[in-house]
């Protein structure tokens, strides 16, 4: 009983933090005036800095380390509250779903270079492969849409295997170039290929899961009509939860430990009998699968895709998310994706300048805080364990 109280007290800071963040997000998303948004941003930043200064962030971290399962539920509940609050607002729900989908893709990237250290500057390309797979399959086949989602992931992983040989044989700068070349190749290929719509792109059908049509508004009774984007929010939340749980489990497992060993010192890992190629292939394939999966649902949500969504700049945005959040920390990704995706949509002034802004932001992060906003903590196998 006593212990139960103690753990509840321990959970409180984390729960409070999430509640505050949710309230702030709701406020932020509902304010329209640019001055109001700027003021909220400054206020929010000040509060975060002050909390960090007085040890609040460390206490929240302890909550998460103490009982992660409970905290995960709190976060899911927060996401549902947020969705419920904006139940008829198309634009905001679209934004929320987009953030979640990008989180899935960024999780894929985390597995690749957060854990295994495999550089991938083609994140947007694999995301795009998922999108185009969904477009082609929904248009030309009657495949159930669950399978279409999976096919998006599988296709990205399959095309990724084409890059395996060059990525495995090269290191560091060299493998970076392979993936950069692939991103450029992918976009130019889409632009000149007429069967895939060329520069005009393709239309994609909406999601239809066992008769649950995602593109219809949900009507409850006579008066309550919920925006159809709520479907996609729920869908991508489920997807995100699965991906997140998977990545966390992967990190805790022997596989995750092996991936870390490969990243930290390839030579030493090889000396201890690790099969470097095997782990790199594993990480690269899992990451591409997640990116493709995210792409497939994204395409169905938008209903329309074109090559301009998958430029090198978009790949760099994915990389920026991972770096900004703290390489290898899934929670960091959640924070960073929200900042990176929501900010330019709300603050119209920076929409045009977003590539410029994020690139500069990453430069500053690398110079002054190379571990990111939320650095990856040590693994804790025992709940509540704290590094000395």
């Amino acid at each position, binding site marked *: 009983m006593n212990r139960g109280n103690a753990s509840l007290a321990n959970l409180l800071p984390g729960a409070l933090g999430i509640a505050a963040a949710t309230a702030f997000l709701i406020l932020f998303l509902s304010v329209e005036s640019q001055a109001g948004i700027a003021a909220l941003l400054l206020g929010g930043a000040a509060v975060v800095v002050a909390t960090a200064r007085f040890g609040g962030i460390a206490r929240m971290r302890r909550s998460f380390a103490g009982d992660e399962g409970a905290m995960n539920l709190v976060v899911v509940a927060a996401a549902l509250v947020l969705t419920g609050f904006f139940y008829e607002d198309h634009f905001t729900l679209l934004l929320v779903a987009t953030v979640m989908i990008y989180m899935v893709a960024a999780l894929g990237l985390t597995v690749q*270079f957060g854990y295994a*250290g495999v*550089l991938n*500057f083609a994140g947007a390309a694999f995301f795009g492969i998922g999108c185009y797979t969904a477009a082609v399959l929904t248009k030309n086949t009657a495949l159930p849409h669950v399978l279409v989602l999976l096919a998006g992931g599988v296709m990205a992983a399959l095309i990724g295997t084409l*890059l395996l*040989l*060059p990525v495995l*044989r*090269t*290191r*560091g*700068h*060299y*493998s*970076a*170039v*392979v993936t*950069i*070349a*692939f991103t*450029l*190749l992918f976009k*130019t*290929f889409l632009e*000149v290929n007429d069967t895939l719509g060329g520069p005009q792109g393709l239309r994609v059908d909406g999601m239809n899961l066992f008769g649950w049509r995602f593109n219809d508004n949900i009507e409850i009774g006579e008066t309550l009509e919920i925006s159809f984007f709520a479907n996609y929010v729920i869908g991508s939340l489920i997807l995100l939860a699965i991906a997140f749980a998977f990545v966390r489990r992967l990190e805790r497992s022997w596989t995750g430990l092996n991936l870390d060993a490969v990243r930290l010192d390839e*030579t030493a890992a090889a000396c201890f009998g690790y099969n470097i190629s095997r782990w790199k292939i594993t990480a690269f394939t899992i990451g591409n699968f997640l990116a493709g999966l995210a792409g497939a649902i994204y395409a169905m949500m938008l209903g329309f895709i074109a090559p301009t969504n998958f430029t*090198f*700049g978009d790949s*760099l945005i994915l*990389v*920026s998310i991972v*770096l900004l959040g703290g390489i290898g920390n899934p929670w960091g990704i959640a924070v960073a994706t929200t900042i990176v995706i929501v900010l330019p949509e709300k603050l119209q002034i920076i929409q*045009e*300048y977003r*590539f*410029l802004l994020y*690139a*500069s932001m*990453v*430069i500053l992060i*690398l*110079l002054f805080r*190379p571990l990111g906003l939320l650095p990856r903590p040590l693994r804790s196998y025992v709940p509540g364990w704290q590094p000395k």
Partner: protein
Amino acid sequence: MDLGLFSQYVMNGLMLGMMYALVAVGFTLFFGVLDVINFSHGDVLMVGSFTGLATYLGLDALGVVWPAFQVTAVLAAATLAMALLGAVIARYLVLPLKSAPALNTLLITLMLGTVLREGIRMFYPEGANPKPFPALLPTDAYPLGNFNLRIDNLLMLSAGLVVIVGVHLLINRTKLGLAIRAVAQDEETAKTMGINFNLVVLVTFAIGSALAAFAGIMNGLYYNETNFGIGLLLGVIGFSSAIIGGLGNIYGAIIGGFLFAALQTVGAVALPFASAYKDVFAFGVVILIMAWRPTGLISEKVSERV
């Protein structure tokens, strides 16, 4: 294929090769002194090309129309400005991260490239559209059969040759070149011999970036157009050329540049679908080369120290 068309392709290949070689030499120089890849190199080239364009427009507005002076001024402004930019990049972005993981240098230069590219796109007047580049060189042509030998192409080729020979002499015959080679061989020993390491790095970055600016002007003159996106393509191709020749090896980089251009030209001629898929083909070749020879045809002769 008749001789005229063939000569046309050869000329085209030579021009491309010269540009690629100039870019590749920059990559290889940076790698030599600091073991880093400067991924913003291609975008430095692009900024150089825009600096040249802006200089021309400025001169035009001032009413200076003497062509020889225009060319000189455009070249001087672009190369000097980019040399300065290169030194600044080395001083404030690359050197501070010297002891950090190589990944950080890679990312920081990649992001700087984005900053430069987006900076030109957003802040150069109508930078998002392709800009016509003035024909500063005489455009007379001598018909040889059905091939038109253009004076400006010939001039550019010879100028490129002069620059490459100049770099060769600088590296091999001057004290500065000796210092660069010493630093490339062993940083610690070079320092104990009294070589100012930081200065050598800055100068090397300045030289490499000036070469990129030269290639940028050449690119503008050759295509009569420049746009904010050329850096990405030329950067990736230049880097691949440097790798084909083996990073750190200047002559390898030059050969690599011409080899890559030859490959691209042959590809464009031989493959029926190639005209639309020209760039797809080029990048595909980059990936294949990396898979085949990960550290280049003439690979580095250093074994890794653990």
